[in-house]
């Protein structure tokens, strides 16, 4: 039994955490928020130089060909650090979508550029109140698409988009005729989003149809669960640190049971989320039949943990936690972003049950 990350992956985690603590404390997120820029280009360049964008790209296409486990580790660390870079869009989502559903030509064209940082990808799944993988209003005919996608994160940085339609995934280049990109404001003031309006914009079908789209959603659910887990743990640690320092009524507030038991509840939720995320990582790695269930469970547990940690992190900080200057707001806002960018908790809870209805449990729950 080996239900943990390898020593190599843990070494990568240590290295990533040191790098991000050094280069990407939350002042970077604040700077991007204040400047209104799309991301921190200097930090992104360093991340590219570290090879993180090349991690999963096969060696023959200029990448490192590492496993999804290493990617999970980085997802968690970037989630912790709230790094204002298009890592989620380009590495966790667009690169994985290409690996899952790209045609040979698409892979050959884009993966080397994603790996060496000369291109950034983004994904466009969202359409109004629809769930991802649900009915799309995008009309596609004769290689041209019309319709809207919003919110699309990191659209301004992206060179191409992977978009979802009723029959699978498509690739849309930013330079495409008929594509307009308009700003939308979201609750998240660091990770910018846009609305894509397509009017007979030329798109290229990707491989695998709906099945590949589904497979991509499962992969995305697990990777975003790791990102959320990192955020939930960071919010908890921020609260723990404050509770050990702040004094009220003559003692550290962390000594009051109302505070310490809330923090214990955060720990409980975060550990449950971690266990489900690991299960998802295992299922992704081994392409196990449990993958759809593991992905849904990882996503639900991560949404739950992050929302609780983010809300109670503000609360445990008291007044200071509600100020613009406090970092609490980054977690509060990002938790919502992650909760809604890929189908809500209710949607994925439904997927949990759908999968439980279909299979026997591989081991007793």
């Amino acid at each position, binding site marked *: 039994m080996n239900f943990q990350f390898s020593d190599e992956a843990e070494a990568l985690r240590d290295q990533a955490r040191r790098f991000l603590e050094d280069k990407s404390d939350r002042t970077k997120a604040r700077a991007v928020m204040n400047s209104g820029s799309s991301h921190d280009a200097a930090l992104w360049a360093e991340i590219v130089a570290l090879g993180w964008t090349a991690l999963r790209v096969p060696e023959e296409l200029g990448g490192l060909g590492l496993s999804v486990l290493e990617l999970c580790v980085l997802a968690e660390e970037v989630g912790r650090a709230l790094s204002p870079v298009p890592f989620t869009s380009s590495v966790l989502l667009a690169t994985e979508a290409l690996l899952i559903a790209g045609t040979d030509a698409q892979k050959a064209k884009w993966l080397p550029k994603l790996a060496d940082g000369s291109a950034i990808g983004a994904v466009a799944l969202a359409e109004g109140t629809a769930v991802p993988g649900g009915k799309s209003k995008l009309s596609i005919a004769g290689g041209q698409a019309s319709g809207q996608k919003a919110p699309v994160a990191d659209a301004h940085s992206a060179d191409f988009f992977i978009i979802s339609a009723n029959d699978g995934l498509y690739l849309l280049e930013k330079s495409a005729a008929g594509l307009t990109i308009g700003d939308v404001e979201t609750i998240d003031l660091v990770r910018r989003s846009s609305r894509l309006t397509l009017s007979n914009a030329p798109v290229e079908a990707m491989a695998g149809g709906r099945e590949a789209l589904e497979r991509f959603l499962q992969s995305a659910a697990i990777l975003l669960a790791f990102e959320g887990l990192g955020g939930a743990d960071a919010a908890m640690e921020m609260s723990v640190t404050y509770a050990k320092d702040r004094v009220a009524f003559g003692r550290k507030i962390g000594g*009051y049971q109302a505070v310490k038991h809330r923090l214990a509840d955060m720990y409980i939720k975060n550990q449950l989320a971690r266990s489900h995320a690991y299960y998802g990582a295992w299922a992704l790695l081994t392409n196990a039949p449990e993958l759809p269930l593991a992905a849904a469970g990882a996503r639900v547990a991560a949404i739950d943990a992050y929302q609780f940690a983010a809300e109670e992190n503000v609360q445990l900080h008291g007044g200071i*936690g509600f100020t613009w200057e406090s970092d609490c707001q980054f977690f509060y806002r990002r938790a919502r972003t992650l*909760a809604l960018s890929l189908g809500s908790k209710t949607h994925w809870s439904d997927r949990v049950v759908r999968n439980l209805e279909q299979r026997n449990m591989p081991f007793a729950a």
Partner: protein
Amino acid sequence: MDFEDTAEEAAYRAKVREWINANKASIRAEDHSSRAEAVTAAKAWQALKYEAGYVGITWPKAVGGQGGTAMQQIIFNQEEAKVNAPTGLYAIGLGMCIPTVFSHGLSPDIAARYVPVAMKGEEVWCQLFSEPAAGSDLAGIRTRAEPDGDEWVINGQKVWTSGAHLSDFGIVVTRTDPSVPKHKGLTMFIVDMKAPGVEVRPIKQMSGGSEFNEVFFTDVRVKDTHRLGAVGEGWKVSLTTLMHERLAVGGKPASAPGVQEMIELAKAIDLEEGNALEQSHVRNQIAEAYINDRGIALTRMRTISALSSGRTPGPESSISKIVVANTMQDMGAFASDLCESAGLISGENLPHLARFQGSYIGSAGLRIAGGTDEILRNIIAERVLGLPSDIRPDKDIPFSEATRLS
């Protein structure tokens, strides 16, 4: 049991309505966006009310009040709310500061100087209590006041001062004796917010708004005649001030959407399984919000009913803010969940979504402001249920030593 006014209440309400109808043309609805105009509008309305005898309805006639009942005040507030009259500018000054001034001011001169002008709305007041190291633990304040002849010299920093930037005067709690336990060395003063050495800086909140301020005091001089209560009695004086606050807060903010808005939002969303409002989890959530929101409104009816019949209201109103704020947060999250990815977008064209989004952010502050969830649960447990208080290691030792516990 009935929800009707008594005969006296109905008569008073009729009188109020008649006056409001006659004057409502001059009302400019409460407006937080345009500050200078909002202040002008609020001042104009306050002057009208003063002329007509609707300020200080429950205050003693001796201080210029009407000597009326709490029910009359409630009736006036209800009617005033129906026309969105702008009252926020004076909520703290007339709700908390001026009653402290006329109850604890040292001389009739002080009351005569400040009370009528404040009632007319010509001067605006703020309340300077919280400090960076004294939020929930209000008695932990460190702002010093040191005697100098017949004056006091104030140095220190206050925080979360609502409306300080618009205020002419404030009431400030200071530490005048650090050698005694924390609750015993405090003294309260009236301070001129335009005096040299007072600096007001707005605090930007997570919501983007800036209704609160930091206020810095550097060698600010206050005359001893402007003391409120005895030297060393500031804690007791501030408790009476806060008593007024607890009566004032707790209702649902007017901006916060409720169950009807949630129903309209859900109705607007068609899922593949059908309309969102038909989903059982949506219905459960709406019912829960109804139990909480309506439950608080009904609880308020119980309090008003007691006042109406001349009884002392029970402690049930202590549950209000904690329920309101947490319900707002839960509904805010739920409403955006319901909209899926559209729930992230500001200004998305779905009924009431923008208000729910705002409510989700604002509720995080409301759970803290004016007593955190934790402090309010302590108050219910200790004062209502009679449970033992927390152990407070700093309670009986000199403040100067207690700060070292930090």
